[in-house]
């Protein structure tokens, strides 16, 4: 394992000092490992809190700022944050209009956010609603399992719900918009390499030189299927077709198309993949209304990518286009 780190157990804490130093319009609560908009709480604005295990940067801290999150809770690497952190964040960003928790659907995240929501409400009466993101079509959905993982759509929920909150919409509306994004988006990922959790010190799984892992999540976990390495054209259809089949997207739909790097993939490959994805969509009569290409929700240094499609209407496009000013997504401001 080769990393630019000091003590493997302190990576998250150490990086938070860097985020604080680099972004003067963010505030970091180090004991609680929280990143805030400097101007939180905003009176009358719904507060947006997300968080999860670290190792997915820029998610979530890189999306804190006007037009997106009010606070991000950083767990240990690949380990959801604890209720104390989430409670502190929830109380801090409450501007009187309630707080929305954006939670990726993992057992640990769900339980810790649930406990936190109960505690925060009990302690201060803050109204908390929450939206689960569960967009990974690589995982079979079922009432009897943990359900699907939350992956790429998380970024889109944070942006779009963030814009709605910034407009001053009430908690129920912001929650409904977040839920709509969560409902109408789907993702699928692929790894060319595994990644190493710093404290584990070695790759979570091993892939041979001619293998790839289809259906990976964002925790270095093995995927659904190990396949021989394939050209980008084939990989694109392995990722896009299951996404299209699942929602289902229809001829004439407009989508936001998001090609995401897993952390160790160079941008030139992501653009190449984006072209393949766009071509498949055109073939299905689907219009790309907006696009996003880059490494926004990662799995440490894993090489690979994911494709996320979100069905959009004019209102979602308007909210996507609204100004945002965060370390990792910024426009119009």
């Amino acid at each position, binding site marked *: 394992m080769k990393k630019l780190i000091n003590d493997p157990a302190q990576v998250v804490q150490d990086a938070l000092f860097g985020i604080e130093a680099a972004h003067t319009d963010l505030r970091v609560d180090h004991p609680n490992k929280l990143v805030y908009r400097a101007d939180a709480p905003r009176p009358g604005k719904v507060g947006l809190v997300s968080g999860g295990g670290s190792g997915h940067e820029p998610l979530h801290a890189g999306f804190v700022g006007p037009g997106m999150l009010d606070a991000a809770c950083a767990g240990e690497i*690949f380990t959801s944050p604890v209720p104390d952190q989430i409670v502190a964040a929830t109380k801090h960003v409450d501007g009187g209009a309630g707080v929305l928790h954006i939670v990726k659907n993992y057992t640990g995240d769900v339980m*810790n956010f649930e*406990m936190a929501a109960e505690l925060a409400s009990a302690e201060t009466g803050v109204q908390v609603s929450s939206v689960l993101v569960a967009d990974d079509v690589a995982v079979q959905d079922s009432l009897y399992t943990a359900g699907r993982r939350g992956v790429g759509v998380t970024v889109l929920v944070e942006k779009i719900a963030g814009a709605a909150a910034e407009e001053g919409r009430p908690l129920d509306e912001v929650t409904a918009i977040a839920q709509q994004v969560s409902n109408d988006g789907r993702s699928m990922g692929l790894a060319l390499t595994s990644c190493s*959790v710093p*404290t584990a010190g070695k790759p979570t799984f091993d892939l041979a030189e001619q293998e790839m892992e289809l259906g990976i999540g964002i925790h270095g*976990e093995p995927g659904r299927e190990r396949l021989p390495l394939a050209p980008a054209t084939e990989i694109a259809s392995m990722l896009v077709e299951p996404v299209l089949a699942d929602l289902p997207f229809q001829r004439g739909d407009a989508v936001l198309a998001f090609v995401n790097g897993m952390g160790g993939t160079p941008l030139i490959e992501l653009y190449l993949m984006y072209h393949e994805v766009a071509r498949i969509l055109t073939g299905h009569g689907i219009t790309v209304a907006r696009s996003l290409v880059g490494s926004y929700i990662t799995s440490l240094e894993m090489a690979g990518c994911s494709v996320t499609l979100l069905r959009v209407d004019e209102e979602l496009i308007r909210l996507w286009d609204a100004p945002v000013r965060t370390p990792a997504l910024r426009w119009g401001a």
Partner: protein
Amino acid sequence: MSSDITVSDLTGWLTEFGRLIKAHKEELTALDAAIGDADHGTNMDRGMTAVAEALAADPPQTPAGLGKQVGMTLVSKVGGASGPLFGTFFLRLGAALGEATEVTPDQFAAGLSAGLAGVVARGKAEPGDKTMVDALTPAVAALESAVGQDQPLADGLAAAAQAAADGRDATVPMLARKGRASYLGERSIGHQDPGATTVALLLAAAATAMS
């Protein structure tokens, strides 16, 4: 040692559990790497190290106090799935044992059963889902049956530890339906569940420290 269990016995149990976790940290993480995200050993060790510090800094006076301290520490330090689940386990165990300075083996068995119920309530896993529940359920049953038959506590704990180890081994052929391993579907088969492995260590620690 009297067959009644003191706070100091419980503390000894947790100290031994913490020691076992540290000794098996890499193994637990390796099990989690195979069907999860390679953090279970680190998570539990971070939690149990904090528990040892808390117990030393502010030694609890009652079983209830101990359960609360251990449970809250785990909830606050572990995160992930095991933080809330093991945290809930100890919170419920403490609540069930109450404020008495000593508890009987019966009460202890009932306490573990309450802890198990808490884990199930929080995590909604059923036996057979390939989780910690698969080790905890038979362990609690074994202890309850032993103390119900008035066997010595040591025998009951030995039986519980054996049942937990068997339950842990039984997770190997299971297909995961809860937790992170469920994402693997069929590929989860053939791997031992890390959380169940931790439960086996928990009961082994009880057998060692409280007999």
